[in-house]
């Protein structure tokens, strides 16, 4: 009855989608393992599956290096930025998984609650105490799969699905910390409610853009925008809502307020992965939307992004100064970093794109390592994240203190560290035009930011410590994560050409 619209048989380029398909397939298998395998078996099978699939996906990703193609009926696109973002995400996922595997720092042997559904403090919970959580693995794999899709999404529908596929597992994982369960659950609730809210905003923005342009895919939107540059209120409102939804995920001010709470409440191993990978995925998608779909209207959105970038840098840097919890300090600093990356987005040029990508890669590894290192400093109650508990750390473990100092200095953007390379790449793209003002704000906020990084360093080296706080000797996994972070900070700082050249080689977004 009624209208017959064309419905062609879709073509799916499975080989080009290998990384995504492998991870999502592994996630489904992982659920199956949860369903049928015995607990002891699950404990070995799940990590094996996770690392195996990540390795295959990574290999597939490397194989896609030269591919520039729109795939799956225009739903996804495989191009240079996609590959580099997916590659980064996969490496971050491997490192994140290593942190999740860590069994030596917590006396209980596992960073996650044995069974998330038990009530904190109940006899029920104690009954499960010795068990190891394996349900985190399917959730983790689904999150990784969604993250891989997000920056590759070429239309609003795929972007939305990807957004949800990686967000929903993260909401659940946030609530699964073994220690401080109430905080963890609360963080999950907040993250969920606000995340769902932002998804709704994103969705409504998509709907309005669709209503204004008649197209969901980015190329179609771009055509409609350039055909009618004055297309009115509907499009503006849609873009504003879409931006708001995405800026929530990247944690830019004023959409950032969830991040300190969530970063603090979530299990630290997950915070590490989430803070690094979410930002990479979300910025990847944001870049694609801004450059491909709205590239023709850059003049329109630049002032808005400039405001958000400036706000993020200032709010992140200034608020971090008064924080007393290291996880919150890092969270606020990640808000500031979001602002720094937005400075690159703001440039709306190929140079801005590569600057942002460089920043994401540099930032991802260092942040992951910094959060990973937080897990080893412990008090009897669990991780010691109060800045005061880190006082005098240099006496207890000079290596931990030195490494953490280096990571903080990298975040502060000290020359000869990757942080400097990143800031250089992002800012040199934006410097010159009217965006110069934003870069100056960036310079001011990084000056402020250096103050709180230094505050932590000073307290580690120059204060008397609390004897109850000890530094646990982590397993190989955590050490690898920290080692990779430190290596990236030094190598990309001393020889930035490696990173700059890599990113320059990938070219721009495919339309």
């Amino acid at each position, binding site marked *: 009855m009624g209208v017959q619209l064309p419905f062609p048989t879709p073509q799916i380029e499975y080989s080009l989608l290998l990384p995504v398909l492998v991870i999502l397939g592994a996630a489904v298998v992982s659920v199956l393992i949860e369903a049928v395998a015995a607990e002891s078996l699950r404990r070995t099978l799940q990590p094996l599956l996770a690392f195996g699939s990540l390795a295959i996906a990574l290999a597939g990703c490397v194989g896609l290096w030269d591919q520039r193609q729109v795939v799956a009926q225009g739903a996804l696109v495989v191009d240079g930025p996609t590959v580099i973002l997916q590659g980064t995400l996969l490496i971050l996922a491997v490192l994140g998984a290593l942190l999740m595997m860590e069994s030596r720092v917590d006396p209980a042997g596992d960073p996650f609650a044995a069974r998330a559904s038990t009530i904190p403090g109940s006899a029920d919970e104690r009954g499960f105490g010795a068990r190891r959580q394996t349900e985190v693995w399917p959730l983790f794999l689904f999150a990784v799969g969604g993250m891989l899709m997000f920056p590759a999404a070429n239309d609003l529908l795929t972007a939305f699905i990807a957004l949800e596929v990686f967000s929903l597992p993260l909401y659940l994982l946030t609530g699964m910390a073994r220690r401080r369960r109430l905080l963890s659950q609360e963080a999950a*609730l*907040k993250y969920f*409610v*606000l995340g769902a*809210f*932002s998804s709704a*905003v994103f969705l409504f923005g998509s709907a309005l853009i669709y209503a204004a342009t008649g197209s969901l895919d980015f190329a179609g939107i771009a055509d409609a925008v350039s055909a009618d540059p*004055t297309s*009115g*209120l509907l499009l*503006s*409102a849609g*873009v*504003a*809502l879409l*931006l*708001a939804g995405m*800026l*929530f995920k990247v944690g830019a001010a*004023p*959409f950032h*307020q*969830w991040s300190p*709470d969530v970063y603090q409440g979530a299990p630290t191993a997950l915070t590490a992965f989430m803070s690094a990978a979410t930002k990479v995925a979300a910025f990847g998608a944001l870049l694609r939307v801004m450059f491909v779909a709205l590239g023709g209207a850059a003049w*329109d*959105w630049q*002032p*808005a992004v400039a*405001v*958000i970038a400036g706000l993020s840098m200032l709010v992140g840097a*200034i*608020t971090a*100064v*008064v924080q007393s919890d290291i996880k919150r300090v890092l969270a606020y600093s990640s808000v500031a970093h979001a602002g720094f990356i937005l400075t690159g987005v703001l440039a709306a040029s190929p140079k801005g794109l590569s600057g942002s990508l460089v920043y994401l890669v540099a930032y991802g590894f260092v942040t992951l390592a910094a959060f990973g290192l937080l897990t080893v400093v412990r008090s009897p109650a669990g991780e010691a994240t109060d800045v005061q508990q880190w006082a005098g750390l240099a006496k207890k473990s*000079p290596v931990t203190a030195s490494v953490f100092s280096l990571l903080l200095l990298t975040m502060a953007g*000290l*020359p000869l560290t990757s942080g400097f390379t990143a800031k*250089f*790449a992002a*800012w040199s793209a934006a*410097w*010159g035009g009217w965006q110069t003002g934003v*870069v*100056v704000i960036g*310079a*001011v906020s990084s*000056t*402020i930011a250096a103050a709180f990084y*230094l*505050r932590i360093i*000073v307290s580690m*080296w*120059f*204060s*008397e410590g609390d004897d109850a706080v000890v530094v646990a000797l982590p397993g190989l996994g955590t050490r690898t994560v920290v080692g990779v972070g430190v290596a990236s900070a030094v190598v990309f700082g*001393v*020889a*930035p*050409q490696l990173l*700059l050249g890599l990113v320059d080689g990938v070219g721009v977004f495919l339309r």
Partner: protein
Amino acid sequence: MTASPALLVAVPLLSAAVLLLTGRRSDRWGHWLGCAAAVGSFLIALNLVLSLAKQPHESREISQTVWTWISVGGFNVDVTFTVDPLSAVFILLITGVGSLIHIYSVGYMEHDDNRRRFFGYLNLFVAAMLTLVLANNLLLLYVGWEGVGLASYLLIGFWQHKPSAASAANKAFIVNRVGDFGLSIAVMLTFVTFGSVAFPEVFAAADKASSTTITWIGLALLLAACGKSAQFPLQSWLLDAMEGPTPVSALIHAATMVTAGVYLVARCHPIFDLSATARGAVVAVGAITLLMGAVIGIAKDDIKKALAGSTMSQIGYMMLAVGLGPIGYIWAIFHLLTHGFFKAGMFLGAGSVMHGMNDEVNMRRYGALRTAMAVTFGTFAIGYLAIIGVPPFAGFWSKDEIIKVAFEHSWVAGGAALLGAAITAYYMTRVMLMTFFGKARWADDAHPHESPAVMTIPLVVLAALSAVGGWALLHVVNLETWLEPVLGHGEGELPFSSSLLLPLTLAVVALGVAAAWKVYGAGADIPVSAPRGSWFIRAARADLGGDLFNEKVLMQPGQRLTATLVRVDDSVVDGAVRGIGGFTTALSARLRQAQNGFARSYALVMVIGAVIVALALAMVRFA
């Protein structure tokens, strides 16, 4: 054979790495490794400078590119170390005085459990400082700049058990951030203007840039110099920095790091040559600081702080001189060198006194030490004669020239320099008299004794340099000719007969000495607790309001902004939400007193954010 400039940096850096990473294992021999690294780099520096001297006068340069750091499009930053006549004098000063201070520290820090770490930091400092002066581009210079800041910071706070040391380290850091901000702006401006940050390319293209840009770059560089060299208005950290061990004060806060600002201006002189405004600002800063530092020097009873005030003042002289243009550059560097000799010597002398007096720093508790500590007294006295400018000691040659070129520039600059000389004579005589003459006012348990040889030998060497160094640099080394290819040469004209200048200067100095003698000289009764003093002395004791300035201008706005942001977050947003919601239960009321953590207020802020974004979009679209 010519040594490699990179090796010069690598030696202390490696030694620092060994000392800091091996931990307690190297406690027994760590300090000797540190000394060996310093002396080794001094030998390398010597080798480099001698090779440099063999090259033709006009094109003396030894460059080594270690690797290409950044290469994007046409923009290249190399890690290149360049030894030219200007950096040559610096590397000799840094490694030479540095070696002496390393050796001295072996004795001074003998009873400190963390002596190895101290030497690690010192080596780190030497490496960073060498990077700073050898860098052939602004970015690498920036690396060294941050490095010396970090090392200075670690060393000021070295005695972390003293809260005052930790807070001094913090203060030094925060004040220096302002300066570093200036340098980062200068680097960015240079990069944008010239498409390069390498000195040769930038200087070659400098005259093609617009004069406004050049002025801004100059002012940004000046801000950086003010931070690092403790010049007005960023001077206050230097006095607090005296919380660090005395060898640190001698090396970093007298002889080398604090002069980095002067080096920066001298190095970038082609920029300043093109902007009279920037040069004028440098002169003003120098003149103000030289008087300010001298006045602070009068009022301090803490021997190290009196010397720190003096350091500020002397660097003020150098700043003044570099601001004068081609006529002053060479004399600024000359004074920098002589000051490096005599001030390091005096600081080490002060350290020797403290060492013998149970770490007492209050000069009101000294007195009559000349017999108890003969070597220290003798060397300190030579430093004293040098700093007040008595011929033929080192300071005389350099200060006299600065006063001369200052008068060539203007009456105001000359007057300030001359007045500064008088005050210098006054406060240094005061230090001298209070410490070594008069009655013994020692604390009951003080048993002053001379320091061991490992400490006195560096004192003697520095004293010798203070005595003849000025004359030798001028007439044996021929510093003027040596520096000319880099810094250029200018001739000025005195507004009065040049034969008047020397008597005038000496008369002024004599006046200052006489005045101090009258107050603190033989038979003067110096109370153990400081009298209240006139408003002038009180203001000077309070560092002439330096901290007040910091607090009002630098810290309060930041704190207020932070507080406001938190308050907006806490009360306005949450308050609005609360008003609408109207909650009742006791628990939530209690939690709400803490006023944060509410997901709904976060959502509200998000909505506000979305509205901001929408408005920004609409403004462009519909405006």
